[in-house]
């Protein structure tokens, strides 16, 4: 690729580089950016999130060409896309399966950070930007879910917007302000469309840019949780680092290939994913007089929904839901362990991470189930497990008997 000389050679490449630092940018950001050489499969999910983002943007642009927002037109236009637009069904499934894939990838990306302590200093801001991306993604997914104006769209909007009504004093007014009407209606649908296709994507892109700039500044963590910059060779390059390009570009292409294969299997063979990615109730138009049973949000929100339903007091339930999401923001300061990676942590951390993992999965499942005494009691138990991971972290992360951390990364190839 471009060396310094080539960048100023005669011809188009030189002409361009004298005016726009394309070569310089690529050299500095890819060729001279050293990433740890010991990334494992968990490190695919960052680049995969970027791939899914681009895919959502493109499929979304084409869907917007045919979608007609409005109480009386939205549902019909989605069916028009599914039936009469050439490959419209493909665009729609790419987008709807893409939304779920985004959360699969993001959850695994976040879980990687939990395992290897990627949120710890000096990567706190990187983690916070990531969490803001996650929040924006939740808003984006929720509003997108409302757009087909199916019956589940309508009722999920009803339930989720009403959560804001539990805020003391301003709640009822706030709910009306969000909906733009006394009920979930045309005004709500129109503003959600505007936010879904313009406002939140812009915010997302800005946050992703900040996330990447912060990543570039502090450098990637790795499965050993060691700073590779601490050991540099005579040339000043990290001994355990390799240039991002070509090594990680070619490796990420393999990850993207594997991901797209699985993604295509879902899109082409099980696009509704057994009622999880597209629900049966959403193939009926929105009907304020007929409530689907049970009302459940999309699978990626169900852990939080299960926590909300587990608490008999509505206001307290909403507060715990908020804490459940926001707790992630405080991880860099809750964690008092001297080591980052789970490889060198003791059994306290491993135990609590296991409890958290099981609780999150169980809550996800319970949030999809109807409300029965047994399910609600189970949700209470797992909610305790979920919160224990965060709230007790300042203590157990300190008590943990950590193992000595090696100087250099462990690398097997």
């Amino acid at each position, binding site marked *: 690729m471009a060396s310094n000389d080539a960048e100023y050679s005669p011809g188009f490449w030189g002409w361009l580089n004298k005016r726009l630092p394309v070569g310089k940018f690529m050299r500095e950001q890819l060729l001279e950016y050293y990433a740890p*050489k010991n990334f494992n499969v968990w490190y695919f999910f960052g680049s995969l999130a970027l791939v899914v983002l681009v895919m959502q943007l493109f499929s979304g642009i084409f869907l917007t060409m045919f979608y007609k927002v409005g109480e009386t037109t939205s549902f*019909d236009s989605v*069916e*028009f896309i*599914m*039936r009469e637009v050439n490959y419209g*069904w*493909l665009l729609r*499934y790419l987008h709807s399966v893409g939304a779920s894939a985004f959360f699969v990838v993001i959850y695994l990306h976040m879980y990687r950070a939990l395992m290897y302590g990627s949120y710890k200093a000096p990567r706190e801001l990187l983690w916070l930007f990531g969490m803001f991306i996650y929040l924006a993604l939740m808003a984006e997914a929720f509003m997108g879910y409302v757009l087909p104006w199916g019956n589940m769209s309508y009722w999920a909007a009803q339930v989720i917007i009403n959560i804001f009504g539990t805020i003391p004093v301003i709640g009822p007014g706030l709910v009306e302000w969000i909906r733009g009407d006394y009920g979930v209606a045309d005004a709500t649908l129109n503003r959600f469309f505007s936010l879904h296709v313009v406002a939140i994507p812009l915010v997302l892109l800005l946050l992703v840019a900040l996330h990447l700039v912060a990543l570039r500044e502090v450098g990637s963590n790795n499965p050993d949780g060691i700073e590779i910059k601490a050991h540099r060779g005579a040339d000043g390059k990290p001994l355990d680092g*390799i240039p991002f390009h*070509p*090594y990680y570009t*070619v*490796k990420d*292409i*393999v990850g*993207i*290939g*594997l991901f*797209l*294969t699985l993604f*295509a*299997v879902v*899109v*082409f*063979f099980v*696009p*509704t994913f057994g009622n999880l990615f597209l629900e*049966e*109730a959403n*193939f*009926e138009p929105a009907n304020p007089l007929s409530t689907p049973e049970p009302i459940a949000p999309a699978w990626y929100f169900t852990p939080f929904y299960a926590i909300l339903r587990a608490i008999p007091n509505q206001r307290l339930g909403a507060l715990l839901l908020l804490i459940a999401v926001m707790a992630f923001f405080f991880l860099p300061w809750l964690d008092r362990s001297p080591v980052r990676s789970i490889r060198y942590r003791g059994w306290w951390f491993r135990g609590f991470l296991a409890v958290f993992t099981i609780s999150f999965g169980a809550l996800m499942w319970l949030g999809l189930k109807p409300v029965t005494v047994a399910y609600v009691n189970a949700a209470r138990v797992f909610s305790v497990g979920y919160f224990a991971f965060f709230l007790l972290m300042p203590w157990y992360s300190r008590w943990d008997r950590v193992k000595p951390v090696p100087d250099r990364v462990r*690398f097997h*190839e």
Partner: protein
Amino acid sequence: MNKSALIAAALLGAACSLGVAAQEPAAPAAETVPWETWQAGNEVSNVASLQRGFRNFMNYCAGCHSMKYVRYSRVATDLKIPTGMLKADLLPDGAAPADYIHASLQGQDGVAWFGKEPPDLSLIARSLGVDKSYRFLKTFYLDPSRPTRTNNLVLDAAAMPAVLSDLEGVKAAVFRDVKVTVDGRTMTEKKFDHFVTVVPGRMSGPEFDAFLRDTVNFLDYAGEPAQVDRRSIGVWVVLFLLVFTWFAWLLKQEYWKDVH
């Protein structure tokens, strides 16, 4: 269409008078009919079945139920039905091939006659599911307390009359009392046990079953007309991606040789 509905109504009337006798079973059935686990078992790639299903839909359903997202011409193309045959045998009078399937029944009449407008069936296989649609069509039984004189196991107090009784025959349902304990209280509930044929239909059991499977198959197709294409394209996409990933992996191995 009208003729078959009349026959059905006449049969129902006859059956209602016989119905009293049928509600007392001669002998308890060996085992309860497991209707809740019946499956449609339809195959959307079977074009012949879809053609029969489309014929059944036009003859027995389209009088009252629309498919407002489905065009006759699209069905004809997908189901390999020649345009001549479509025009001669399947299109209602006054409809053009490119029209959407609209019921002859007017919405207001539906409300007056049945208490509600018969629902559009474009997406019924996706919202209700094919298995439930199949069970619904197969579990009508006599119930003199209902305005239609029939009821349904899947959808209790269904507004829809048993329009296929001409073919299937008229059935009475035999219920038995079951003790159910909910929150510590024991109650007696009526649980469905089996059907008794009161008036035989024009079709045998297996014939009617095949009729239903074809019909539900068409509903499945209409719910997502592109699904057969989707699967056949999917095979090639996945194969391409596997080959692509394999080459990408070879490239990665080549580059990573010098990383130690």
